[in-house]
């Protein structure tokens, strides 16, 4: 049976690529392409063929996107190729880097410059992925359950939000009325790392003395404290402007990018001027990519150092870790501060990108979402954190909305499915509103059937399998 998989995949992929070239607008062809991506990624295919096929698929999907920037399925396919070359084993590093760079820096911008939704999606995924990577250090590697992680994101966002807007002038006399110029953002990204890390230490100092569940509930409480402070520190001194939030937050100048786009003749290619809205989207897309690259690098380096090993040791067995001379509190604090720093920097970028900061973005729900990215992706796994963030983001702002639109179309056209006239479907049933339901269901099913996550870290996979075996055969001794 296995012998047939390779030729079949080859034939199917070739067919769908040909189909795409002949009938680029067909949904069926798009689905076939998506299926090809999956087949190539998951089937048993020789490495060299796999590299080539992924490249062909990436090229085809890029072409489709260029023809029709609104083609979401093609975009999802591209995302799939990207994830595949990021995660599949045995691909030559050169292929990974080349394909990844091409997709991120050529394919997405080509379509994104006419459809900024793609940039938007990319930015969201990037921000969430950085948050997930930060929490991954805390929960995934060090095993410390933090339910108030959004607090650090808030700290970063407010660090820039307050000083990069008219807000600071409200309570500091003589501060520039419009706030610091946008280019100060780069400095404040560094400052946000520091403020968030310090907050991490401040929260961690009391919280990390507590064990497991207590840590969870205390971080949850302290996370809420940060949010309540943001919500109420408009008096006695107006620092955060309370629930109304702070706006407008300044953004860096992007003149260089506009010039660059003009220089390469983007306006001629697209036959219309590239407005500042799209340029900014492009700018933040690039900035987020850059930062996420650094964050991933830092994450990998830490994981393969004495710190990463100490974190895993603490997660596995605190007593044994202590007997190995690892001081618990400082080591845990280091994990906390590192994770906080990652989300701090993304907070500053988030504030600039939105030009708006308000406490609403930093609720308990946000903390839990970040945690879910980590869990879904696979605790402790760097690739998992990114994929988890991507999957949930695509689901929330992509798929669910698409499904809602589809239902609406059916409702209006009165399609009959399984003998049920869709026109009778109550208008309250709008999937886009019920992301929690879908999300909750996914969490439960994942925990029951694949608790190690989509892309498990080797170590966690072992833990889960051992536990399963032991459960079947009786408790541990």
């Amino acid at each position, binding site marked *: 049976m296995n012998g047939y998989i390779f030729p079949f995949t080859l034939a199917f992929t070739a067919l769908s690529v040909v189909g795409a070239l002949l009938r680029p607008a067909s949904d069926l062809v798009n689905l076939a392409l998506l299926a090809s991506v999956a087949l190539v990624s998951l089937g048993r295919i020789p490495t060299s063929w796999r590299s080539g096929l992924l490249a062909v698929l990436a090229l085809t999907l890029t072409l489709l996107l260029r023809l029709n920037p609104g083609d979401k399925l093609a975009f999802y396919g591209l995302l799939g190729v990207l994830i595949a070359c990021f995660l599949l084993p045995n691909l030559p590093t050169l292929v990974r880097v080349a394909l990844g760079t091409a997709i991120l820096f050529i394919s997405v911008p080509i379509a994104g410059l006419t459809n900024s939704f793609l940039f938007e999606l990319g930015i969201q995924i990037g921000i969430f992925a950085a948050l997930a990577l930060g929490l991954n250090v805390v929960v995934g590697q060090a095993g410390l359950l933090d339910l108030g992680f959004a607090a650090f994101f808030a700290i970063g966002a407010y660090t820039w939000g307050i000083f990069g807007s008219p807000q600071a002038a409200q309570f500091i006399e003589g501060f520039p009325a419009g706030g610091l110029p946008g280019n100060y953002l780069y400095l404040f990204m560094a400052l946000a790392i520091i403020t968030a890390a310090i907050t991490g230490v401040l929260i961690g100092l009391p919280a990390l003395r507590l064990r497991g569940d207590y840590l969870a509930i205390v971080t949850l409480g302290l996370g809420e*404290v940060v949010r309540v402070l943001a919500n109420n520190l408009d008096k006695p001194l107006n620092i955060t402007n309370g629930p109304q939030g702070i706006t407008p937050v300044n953004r860096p100048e992007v003149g260089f990018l506009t010039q660059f786009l003009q220089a390469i003749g983007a306006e001629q290619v697209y036959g219309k001027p590239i407005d500042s809205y799209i340029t900014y989207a492009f700018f933040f897309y690039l900035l987020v990519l850059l930062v996420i690259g650094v964050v991933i690098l830092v994450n990998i380096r830490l994981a393969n150092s004495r710190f990463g090993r100490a974190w895993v040791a603490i997660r596995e067995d605190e007593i044994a870790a202590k007997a190995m001379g690892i001081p618990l509190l400082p080591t845990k604090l280091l994990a906390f501060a590192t994770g906080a720093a990652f989300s701090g920097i993304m907070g500053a970028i988030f504030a600039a990108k939105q030009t708006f900061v308000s406490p609403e973005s930093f609720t308990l729900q946000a903390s839990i979402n970040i945690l879910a990215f980590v869990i879904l992706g696979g605790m402790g796994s760097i690739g998992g954190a990114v994929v988890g963030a991507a999957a949930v983001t695509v689901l929330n702002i992509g798929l669910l909305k698409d499904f809602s639109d589809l239902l609406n179309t059916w409702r209006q056209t009165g399609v009959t499915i399984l003998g049920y006239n869709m026109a009778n479907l*109550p208008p309250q049933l709008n999937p886009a509103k*019920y992301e929690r*339901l879908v999300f*909750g269901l996914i969490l439960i099913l994942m*925990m029951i059937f694949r608790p190690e996550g989509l892309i498990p870290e080797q170590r966690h996979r072992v833990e889960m399998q051992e536990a399963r075996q032991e459960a079947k055969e009786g408790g541990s001794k």
Partner: protein
Amino acid sequence: MTLGDLVAILPQTVLEGLLLGFVYAMVALGYTMVYGVLGLINFAHSEVFMIGAVIGLEVFRFWGNPAAPVIANPFLLLLVALLFAAVGSGFMAVLVERFAYRPLRKRGSKNILVPMITAIGVSFLLQDLTRIYAALRHNEFNMQYRTYEALNQVFELPFQTTIQMKGVLIIAVSVLMLIGLTYLVNRTKLGKAIRAVSQDMQTAALMGINPDVIISRTFLIGGALGGVAGVLFGLLYTNITPYSGVLPGLKAFTSAVLGGIGNIPGAMVGGLILGQLETLSGTYLPFLTNGNFGTEYKDVFAFLTLVLLLLFRPQGIFGQNVSEKV
């Protein structure tokens, strides 16, 4: 406001805090029982509580329509509502245990994150299922409890305090329930089995106790208490949404931790303390800080107290200090 005024409102504030505290205490019992047995923070308990409130609300709507009531007596109506909510929420809790937590237990994951994430997932699921229900049935997000004069009747108490009939009922019902639960856990066979399972599940099995059955019953009891608390909460605050359970749930869990999680009297005391802390700080903080720090800070106050307490007494007020065997 003079010092005299501040003192004058104290008794009423304490009374309000007591009502809130009893509601927290009842919800906290559900958390503490499940935690005691499974070591799991059952985040879904806040939704079990909220569903109790919704069930109560429906009973009042079905049978208590003031124009054409099926059950005219509001007290009888309340009793029916409490019964239905207890049964409904209890079964909901059992279902959650059966389909979300038991499979995990059978798979034997030792990672405490796994059940906790599942609990969060269940919590989300129940919130939105309720939301769909509310949307389909009432076409609205906020649901209002009906009010009845008999329940809102005001009594004058010493020290210039007043209490509504429903306040009296809340105190009466919760005290009754707390006594009942204490009796159940300490005196009955089921109660002892629950304690045995929570102290040592494996050894309990060696006594012929089926831990699954006992755990299921524990969820039933905890859920029923949560349901009753939900109705009383709805009666007190009248407005219920699918997300109404979250905050009280969190507070109740905090109460349970304050009192020493897994400890039943601890949960009650923790709830009462938190109720007082919250109402007192909510009332007095604005005065004490010239309005600079308002009522909004009461939650901050509550959580900081929790952190402080845990730092000095990590096992809570009544908790046992358990050290790991090396």
